[in-house]
């Protein structure tokens, strides 16, 4: 057998726990009240364009992009704007939101709700610029979690040229299966989406990276690519976390490493998009459907009926947890995302957003942390760090507020994958301290750059 590709530095093998791999996606029920945070993406928050009491339809824009790096927000429900207020989101802070009381399910007329597959070859008149502007207008942001506005990634900064598109079908995070279900249920739409992304980026080469633990998805896509998408290559990858990290995926698929920040994947010719994003691009460009629905896994070992859902954004997580049989008894930790990178929530009234790929409920012992022991400098964190950093040093120096030291030690290269914390035999809260250090250093750098500009 051919040796499977993977990334070169570090990596771990957490238990998969993909409980919902074989469960077909269900439609989630419409919520009674939908909450739309204005900041579901990296960049400036969106600006509301509706007022209290306005009637809105499904697919209507309710907030416009608030800057260049920003994205509009669309209503996923029809009804009346109840209020524009603040509410908790997954970060644990109160953020501005638009709340809509749901009445019926009336869609914008422009949206094509049929199942007919629209291929790019049938729409040869679409130019790259048109595709990018539709993606921008549909409010599409990265669906894998980080939520960077997609249209910006498709317009490389001056001095760089895109050479290929890499589609992330890795889903290396334990528990989550939403991307896998999407790949199994909508392969044709994803492939048209990849075609659109390639045309938008003006490249002739596409890759889909899929880990070996999803053999059926690999087979399905290899077959489909052979039958009509000659420019797209399926790359089976050796299973290793965090292969779904953008930089790790570029290394694994094309054997190139992205230089340290501020360099981005396009510096080595790569544009990386999630399978969910490719699907959203298809719907936006071919079906005129802006981004207001997504695939989300709701999972947990003690959950009565975990499952995969097609959810209208704005639906509170509590409603999805109820649909899975309710919160299990005893201690639970609810995460927006998976167990490695997910954010622990303080309330389940948080809505599903553009980047919410799963709601994971860890129960009992899994919900608790083990008491940390002294660092014995075993260097396990150093050997698993996929960015080649020294987590023990970054964590200790951050805890001591030595910001200059951690900046010198490249803390901003940290991708917050949590491999160090996972592997630590002394159960030290490495990532917690590194996140503190990283966000502080990012703030310092921003202020310094602003001061230097004056």
């Amino acid at each position: 057998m051919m040796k499977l590709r993977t990334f070169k530095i570090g990596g771990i093998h957490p238990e998969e726990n993909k409980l919902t791999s074989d469960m077909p996606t269900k439609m989630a029920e419409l919520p009674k009240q939908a909450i739309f945070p204005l900041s579901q993406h990296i960049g400036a928050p969106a600006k509301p364009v509706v007022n209290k009491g306005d009637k809105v339809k499904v697919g209507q824009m309710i907030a416009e992009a608030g800057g260049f790096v920003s994205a509009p927000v669309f209503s996923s429900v029809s009804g009346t704007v109840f209020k524009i207020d603040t509410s908790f989101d997954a970060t644990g802070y109160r953020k501005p939101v638009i709340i809509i009381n749901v009445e019926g399910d009336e869609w914008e007329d422009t949206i094509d709700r049929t199942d007919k597959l629209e291929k790019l070859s049938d729409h040869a008149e679409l130019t790259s610029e048109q595709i990018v502007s539709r993606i921008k207008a549909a409010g599409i942001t990265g669906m894998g979690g980080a939520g960077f506005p997609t249209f910006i990634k498709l317009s490389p900064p001056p001095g760089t040229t895109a050479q290929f598109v890499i589609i992330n079908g890795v889903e290396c995070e334990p528990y989550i299966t939403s991307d896998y279900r999407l790949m199994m249920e909508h392969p044709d739409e994803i492939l048209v989406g990849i075609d659109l992304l390639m045309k938008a980026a003006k490249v002739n080469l596409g890759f889909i990276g899929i880990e070996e633990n999803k053999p059926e998805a690999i087979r399905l896509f290899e077959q489909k690519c052979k039958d009509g998408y000659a420019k797209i290559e399926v790359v089976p990858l050796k299973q290793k976390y965090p292969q779904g990290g953008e930089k790790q995926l570029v290394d694994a698929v094309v054997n190139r490493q992205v230089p340290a920040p501020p360099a981005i994947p396009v510096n080595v010719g790569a544009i990386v998009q999630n399978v969910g994003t490719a699907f959203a691009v298809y719907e936006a460009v071919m079906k005129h459907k802006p981004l207001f629905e997504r695939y989300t896994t709701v999972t947990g070992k003690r959950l009565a009926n975990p499952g995969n859902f097609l959810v209208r954004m704005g639906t509170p997580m509590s409603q999805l947890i109820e649909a899975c049989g309710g919160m299990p008894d005893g201690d639970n930790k609810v995460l927006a995302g998976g167990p490695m990178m997910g954010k622990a929530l303080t309330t389940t009234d948080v809505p599903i957003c553009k980047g919410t790929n799963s709601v994971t409920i860890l129960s009992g012992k899994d919900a608790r942390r083990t008491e940390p022991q002294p660092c014995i400098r075993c260097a396990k964190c150093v050997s698993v760090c996929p960015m080649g950093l020294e987590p023990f040093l970054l964590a200790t120096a951050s805890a001591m507020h030595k910001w200059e030291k951690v900046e010198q030690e490249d803390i901003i290269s940290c991708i917050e994958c949590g491999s160090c914390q996972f592997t630590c035999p002394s159960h030290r809260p490495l990532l917690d301290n590194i996140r503190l250090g990283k966000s502080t250093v990012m703030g310092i750098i921003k202020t310094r750059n602003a001061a230097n500009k004056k």
Partner: protein
Amino acid sequence: MYGVIIALLPALLVSFLYFGIGSAIVCASSVIACVFFEWAISKYILKRDGHSITDGSAVITGLLLGMNLPSNLPVWIIVIGALVAIGIGKMTFGGLGNNPFNPALVGRCFLLISFPAQMTSWPLIGQLGKYTDATTGATPLSIMKTAIKSGDSSVLDKLPQSLHLLLGNVDGGAGTIGEVCALALLVGLVYMLVRKIITWHIPVSIIATVFVFSGLMHLANPVYADPLTEILSGGLMLGAIFMATDYVTSPMTHKGQIIYGVAIGFLTVVIRNWGAYPEGMSFAILIMNAFTPLINTYIKPIRYGEEKK
């Protein structure tokens, strides 16, 4: 931590077989004394509530200290060694994870300098029922030292064969409790590598350096023993496998670990051939322990994106 204890078991069992009751008394009193001092110091001097004795680190220090001693050493000397190892080598710096030097080696070197007579009289193996009254003999390393000092390479003919050094099963062999059977130590090494407790970098770089360097010395002048005998005798295996690989006092990166290992190997041969003591392993490790923070400062892991230059 307990993985290291399991890895030490083969060597420990072999030592019971060779040194009998003496080995049992020395190891047991060393472990008990180390655990006692760890407990007493953290409770009454540092006034900590935690139970740092349950992490097993004091047991390992005790075992390693015991295995570095001759099997006829009186208990009172062992207790002093344990106090220095745990008290000065470890707890002074704040306990587990903070000590710059390997505690067991601090204890051993303190005893070696303070009680040179008792610490360099090595009982011959096979005297199972005897403790402090055991007959002593010359270790392979002291034979080598005699050869170097006298400049007469025929002294080396008294050395046991390499196979005997590997198995330890030799009439008239002598040495510390843990160093007489290289094979048992290698079994421990394989176990630790398989369980991924340690990586190969430190032990292999030490052993390879000693082999190459002493091989060159042997070629240049046959008064220096052959390299196979050099790597199989003395505390080299014990040190390379169990002492130099101590997490706390060794470098973090694989590149740093190789530099550390090569330097230990080099210093060991230098001390063995030109130093005052027949064995240089303990001193070599302690010297390189002092360089570990420096190595950690300058040898960084390969960052992502820097790999190809």
